[in-house]
C-alpha cells in the first residue's frame, strides 16, 4: 500500500522542518510513504526549507489559494498518482505525525473510509485554550445544523482518507471552511467515519496561525453563502 502525507503550508518556514522530520519513515503494511508539502504561495522560505528533504515533494502554488485550495491540490495529486491512503497534517506543528500509524489502522482493517483525529476525544483536551474550545464547539454546531453530521472536532486538520474516499470527495471551498465542507462530502457519499483521539499541541506560534477567533465568523458566513448558491 502507498501512503501520501499532504501538508498544506503558508509561510511556515519555522515549523515545517520539525513536522517533516517527525513523519515516520516506515509503517507496517505500508510499502511507500510519500510526503507532499503544498506551498500555498508563501512569501518566506517555506519552499526552500521543505525542498531540502530528499523524500519530500514540494508543490508550489504560484498564488495563495487558502487551505481549501491547497487541499484540493493534495487530493488531485493523490488521485493522479493512485495513492491508497491520504493523510492531511497541519504545518504549524499542531499535530504529532508519529500518531499516523495509529490513525491509519481503522482504514487498513476495513472499518473506516475516513479517520478524523479528534483533539476533543483526547485525555489531554484540557490543554486546549478555552477560546479554541468555544470556536471548535461553534464549528461543530454549524457543521451539524448545515450538514446534519455530528463530530467532536470539525476543525481538525489531522485526517486519513482511503482511496475510495479520495475518489468520491470533491471539495469546492477555498479557505478554512473546507474543514466543515468535508463533512457534507462524508454524508453525501455515505462514507464510514471513525474518530480517534489525537494529542492537541498548542504553542504560542500555532495560536497566532491557523483559524483565529476573528476569522471564524468569516468562515461561517462563507459556509452559509456556499450552501445558498
Amino acid at each position, binding site marked *: 500500500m502507498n501512503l501520501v502525507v499532504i501538508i498544506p503550508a503558508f509561510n511556515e518556514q519555522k515549523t515545517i522542518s520539525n513536522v517533516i522530520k517527525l513523519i515516520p519513515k516506515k509503517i507496517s503494511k505500508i510499502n511507500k510513504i510519500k510526503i507532499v508539502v503544498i506551498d500555498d504561495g508563501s512569501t518566506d522560505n517555506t519552499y526552500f526549507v521543505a525542498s531540502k528533504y530528499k523524500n519530500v*515533494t514540494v508543490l508550489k502554488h504560484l498564488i495563495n*489559494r487558502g487551505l481549501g*485550495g491547497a487541499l484540493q491540490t493534495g487530493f*488531485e495529486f493523490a488521485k*493522479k498518482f493512485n495513492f491508497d491512503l491520504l493523510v492531511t497534517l497541519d504545518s504549524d506543528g499542531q499535530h504529532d505525525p508519529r500518531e499516523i500509524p495509529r490513525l491509519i489502522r481503522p482504514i487498513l482493517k476495513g472499518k473506516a473510509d475516513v479517520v478524523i483525529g479528534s483533539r476533543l476525544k483526547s485525555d489531554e483536551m484540557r490543554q486546549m485554550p478555552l477560546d479554541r474550545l468555544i470556536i471548535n464547539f461553534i464549528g461543530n454546531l454549524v457543521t451539524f445544523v448545515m450538514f446534519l453530521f455530528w463530530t467532536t472536532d470539525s476543525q481538525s486538520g489531522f485526517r486519513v482518507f482511503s482511496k475510495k474516499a479520495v475518489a468520491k470527495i470533491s471539495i469546492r471551498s*477555498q479557505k478554512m471552511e473546507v474543514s466543515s465542507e468535508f463533512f457534507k462530502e462524508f454524508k453525501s457519499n455515505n462514507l464510514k467515519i471513525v474518530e480517534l483521539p489525537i494529542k492537541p499541541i498548542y504553542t504560542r506560534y500555532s495560536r497566532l496561525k491557523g483559524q483565529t477567533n476573528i476569522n471564524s465568523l468569516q468562515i461561517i458566513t462563507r459556509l452559509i453563502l456556499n450552501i445558498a*448558491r
Partner: protein
Amino acid sequence: MSIVQVILIVFIIFAVSRAILRLRQGNLTALGFAFWMSIWILALIGVVFPEISTDIAKFLGIGRGVDVIIYLSIMVLYYLVFRIYIIIEDLRQEITKLVSSLSIENERLINLIRNSRKSKSSRPSKASNKK
C-alpha cells in the same frame, strides 16, 4: 413631463444601448439581455406613467407608488449582488484549479529535468570509452 422624468428616460436609453452593445460583442447572453431589457422596459413604464406604480401600490397595500419601486429595486439589487458573489466564487474556483494543475505539472517537469541530468551524468562519455 418633469425634469426628473427626462433625466431618468435619458439614463434608461443609455442603459438599453449598453445592453445592446454587450449583446453584439458577445459579452451578454440572450437570456441576460432579455433580463436586462425587461428591467429597463419596466423602469421606462414606471417613469413615463408614474400613476401605474401608484395603482400597483394601492393593489399591494403599500401606499405610495415610489415605495413599490424602491422595494422592488432593493430586491433586484440583492439578487444581483448574490449573482455577482456566485460568479466571483466560480472564478476563484477556476483560478484554484489552474494553480493546482500548474503546481503538479511544474513538479513533473522539474523531475523530468532532474532525471535527464542524472542519466546524462551517469552515461559514460565517448572519451572515457575509448580509454
